[in-house]
């Protein structure tokens, strides 16, 4: 069974599904942001696990002597995950700041209610 060997990919897919459902179907803005972070976690797990090769060393090579590339795991996914983490931190901070502003104006975190209030404001104008 491939699924038993690819257990890390299965875990990351489950995390992705849970996070995506939270992101799309939750009405609370905070839960949406949390859902996005869970999606991110799933993607990082998936990416980082792609670089791992059984029985090989971490990509920190000795200072002297010959380097045989086939003794080490793949360092590229680690660099990509780093990029993703930085972007997700910035994105979460920006989203949370917007949420603070929304809450200060409408006193609720429910997107449906905020939408209704916005519509009423538009009608009054």
């Amino acid at each position, binding site marked *: 069974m*491939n*699924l038993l*060997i*690819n*257990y*890390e*990919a*299965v875990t990351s*897919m*489950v995390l*992705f*599904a*849970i996070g*995506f*459902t939270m992101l*799309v*179907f939750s009405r609370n803005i905070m839960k949406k942001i949390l859902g996005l972070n869970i999606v991110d976690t799933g993607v990082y797990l998936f990416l980082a*696990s*792609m*670089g*791992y*090769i*059984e029985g090989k060393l*971490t*990509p*920190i*090579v*000795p*200072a*002297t002597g010959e*380097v*045989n*590339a*086939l003794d*080490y795991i*793949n*360092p*590229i*996914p*680690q*660099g990509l995950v*780093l*990029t993703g*983490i*930085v*972007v997700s*931190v*910035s*994105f979460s*901070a*920006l989203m*949370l*700041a*917007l949420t*603070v*502003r929304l809450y200060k104006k409408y006193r609720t975190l429910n997107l449906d209610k905020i939408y209704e209030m916005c519509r009423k404001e538009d009608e009054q104008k």
Partner: protein
Amino acid sequence: MKNKKFSSLLKEWYEGNLSFDERMDSDIHKKETAETEEKEIRLVKDVEKAEKELTSKGYKFFSVIFCVILALILILTVNFMPLFADDSTPTANEVYEHYVGEGRDQTGAVNTVAGMILDYRAFDTLGESFVLFTATCAVLLLLEQSKKQKVKEKESFTFSNDPIVCTIVKIITPIIIVFGVYVLFNGHISPGGGFSGGSVLGAGFILFAMAYGEDNAAKIITPKIIRVITICSLSFYCLAKSYSFFTGNEFNGIHSIITPGTPGDIVSGGLILPLNIAVGLVVCCTMYSFYMVFKRGRLD
């Protein structure tokens, strides 16, 4: 219509056979008494309430079903993926062999990941630093309050009077900051680097601000210092990498004065150590300013 049972009415309405407008129209033909109107309003409210409950339950059920189906589809795809930790995965190609095999001699960094993200792919990391900088700017724009709108002391949550937190932080903050500096300066010869070291440093400063009060921390780490450090680091990164980009080419006759040095030494790896420090300072300032802005609404 009045004689119909509530449940059957609800069912009819929910199936779309009955709309509010129709009912209103039919009511106009009847004799309108205050009683029937009141009943009607109550009925409408009840119907709306029940409808809301039904949809919210259906909504939750539907979202669970959606989650399960999405997970199943994705897991089905996993079945056809290359095996985990296998030698013959398509990601282990000649790019990785080049990075690991010749990275040390070309960049001077023992840590291949640092050599990769700060030498071969340095502009990617520059972009990341600018993402952090832009996020700080945006958060400041959105949340910064003037000094007049000062948060009342009672409302804001503070640790400055807590003896346990203060004592522990007094002991642990120097250790955290020294560890952060160690991770920052050893980025090219051991696991770590600018992003992790900067996060550790930022966590140390956040702890400091938490325990001693944001007002005291803001006197030491002023917004001007944060601004100057961030902008200097970013400009240094830009200029240094542009220089190495311009001189890296062998055909224009300009040779770079930066050499990889001896791999394994602290001062080695050419630009990797200074770039690590620059990135770490940007990350540290970003973390600290996120905390301060979310906590007090301003940096000073």
